[in-house]
């Protein structure tokens, strides 16, 4: 549908905010090959972010928005945390309701949309921090996967509670000294990607956001698989530079240092057999081949 829903009545054009005019003129709703390379080239779907200067979460959020395959029919569900400061600036419908209930809200939302729009695809994407996904909301995260709810869960893993000031979280590394873990965290970083695989996710990826091409591919695949096959999960390392004592220019290096061989954010990807079969059906190269052989 592209920009049909957002276009401005000419009578009111001049009184609309300039950001809205830009969204209509240069936004990428309906663009088939949208991706991270549009960032800086066209109007982004995040108007501005209100995170700390140099926060890797801000670029991660911009990549996610730039890589949604169909933002014109995507509804995002957030949770309380740093991301909830950005969501009010995001030009797709988005819901904040409570802390930790994001996968429950998304379950109800996706079911309602599938019922109300049986002939349309409405993508639901959850974006929440590691406290929301793994600690307070773990029950609902896992239950939505067990139930095979057809939406994508993205976790911005900064290994602590950033928005409340740097408290220990389940995804924090063992031994890390933080607020509420004054003698060092006593247990290992929760391995949610492994749990996701056995909980029914059809696509699981873990990475930093240092390589935008990789992020783009993961986001697209996760959302497409969620549409047709079942739940998908992406865990992105978005270090909280503030709380780990880094400068604002050091976020990228921190991510690079954490993604090498055997490091905790070494790239990992899992695709279920069902999802692989589905991806083959939509792979343009394979489609071409089929056409030739036929």
């Amino acid at each position, binding site marked *: 549908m592209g920009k049909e829903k*957002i276009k401005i009545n000419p009578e009111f054009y001049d009184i609309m905010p300039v950001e809205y005019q830009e*969204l209509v003129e240069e936004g990428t709703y309906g663009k088939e090959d949208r991706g991270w390379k549009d960032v800086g080239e066209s109007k982004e779907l995040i108007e501005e972010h209100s995170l700390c200067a140099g926060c890797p979460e801000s670029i991660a959020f911009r990549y996610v928005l730039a890589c949604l395959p169909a933002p014109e029919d995507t509804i995002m569900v957030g949770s309380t945390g740093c991301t909830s400061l950005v969501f009010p600036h995001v030009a797709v*419908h*988005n819901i904040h309701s409570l802390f930790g*209930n994001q996968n429950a809200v998304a379950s109800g939302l996706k079911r309602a949309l599938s019922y109300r729009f049986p002939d349309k695809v409405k993508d639901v994407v959850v974006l929440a921090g590691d406290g929301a996904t793994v600690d307070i909301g773990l029950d609902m995260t896992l239950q939505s996967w067990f139930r095979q709810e057809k939406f994508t869960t993205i976790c911005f893993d900064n290994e602590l509670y950033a928005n409340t000031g740097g408290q220990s979280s389940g995804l924090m590394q063992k031994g890390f000294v933080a607020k509420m873990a004054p003698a060092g965290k006593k247990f290992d970083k929760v391995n949610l990607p492994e749990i996701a695989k056995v909980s029914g996710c059809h696509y699981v990826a873990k990475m930093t956001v240092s390589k935008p091409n990789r992020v783009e591919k993961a986001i697209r695949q996760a959302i497409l698989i969620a549409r047709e096959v079942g739940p998908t999960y992406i865990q992105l390392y978005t270090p909280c530079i503030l709380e780990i004592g880094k400068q604002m220019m050091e976020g990228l290096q921190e991510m690079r240092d954490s993604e090498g061989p055997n490091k905790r954010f070494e790239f990992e990807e899992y695709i279920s057999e069902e999802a692989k079969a589905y991806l083959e059906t939509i792979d343009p190269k394979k489609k071409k081949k089929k056409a030739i052989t036929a």
Partner: protein
Amino acid sequence: MDSKSLIGTYNKKGQKIVDPDYLFFEAPRERHFMTGSEVVREAIKRANVDVSIAYPITPQSEAAAMVGDLYVEGYVGEYFRGENEFAVMSECAGASFGGARVFTTTSGPGTLRAYENFPMWVGSRLPIMLNMMVRGVNSPLSIQPDTLEIGLIIDTGMLIWHAESAQEFFDFLLKGFLVAEEPDVHLPIAVCIDGFFVSHTKDDVLIPSADFVIPPYNPYRNPMPAMDMESPPVRMMRDPFVMKSNYISYATQASWQQETRAACERSRKHTIRLLGGLIEEDNSDAEILIVSSGTAVAQGREAKRLLAEEGIKVGIVKIKTIRPFPYEEVRQATKNAKIIFVPEFNVAGWMAREIKSTIPDNHRVIAGPHVAGGMTMPPEVIVTEIKKVLAKKKETVHG
């Protein structure tokens, strides 16, 4: 799409969409003998519900499971069992944000587990229908009737109606959707009944044909945009979520809370029309009144009969809507009363508090009798209480 324009057409199940007033006031009704749980099934069958999410807890489990049968039969669009009540109410929120008419049920500890969702539903203007079949929430474990949980949700901002009988329950469920979904209200509604007393006992209920349904919910008759990307998205959230520390954000938050409370008050005009008033009076010019809600009123009515046999005249005021509270109606109805008894099925006496804070000369209010934890309240208990107080106050009343 205007819901009214759908009147005369048929829904997916093949039921005829009729004017709600026709269904409520004119359509022929048949007498049935059924439990409160079965009443839920019959009401939801006629309610064009899009999504219902269930979770087991006594005494609402049976009703919640029967809604599942309606889903299989095609009367309800989508249905599943959630993982706990907090999640269920969040799932209901998601479905309602997505523009669906949503129904769910809960009881006792489940209500409290879900609690965080209720003010969020209100602030997000989600017109979810919550049926509360109330029971004890205390420890040691009790599954018995107790109305304490109504008192605990009283200030969440939801509409709260309290049905006395199976018949009222049927009507409140259907009418509740209509009031909650009015654009100038658009708030969640809790329709409460006393667990077991209404949910599990059989009673006469007059119900119209299941060939008729109320019009579907129209999510575009909504003071907030439905979260379905069918309307323009730009720099906005569903709720006024301003976390910056400045005067404008404080004012936004404060005025939104005032607006949701005002929306609750605005429900009066719709409710009065559909329920025939927020209270029901019987002989309310008597000097001795029994004022309460739910099945405590039914027991009060029996006590009134027993006392009449002894020549003691008693009047009854039944409160149908706990929120909005019928302040003016209660003041008027109690203006001639010298003593006001408030029988309640809970230890706290929240209804007595409400009435005390509403009427002048509130020393007239006797907060009781109370029973709690599942104890029954035979009419004789009310009679004894009234006679005990009368003996003490004889001079005041008769002198």
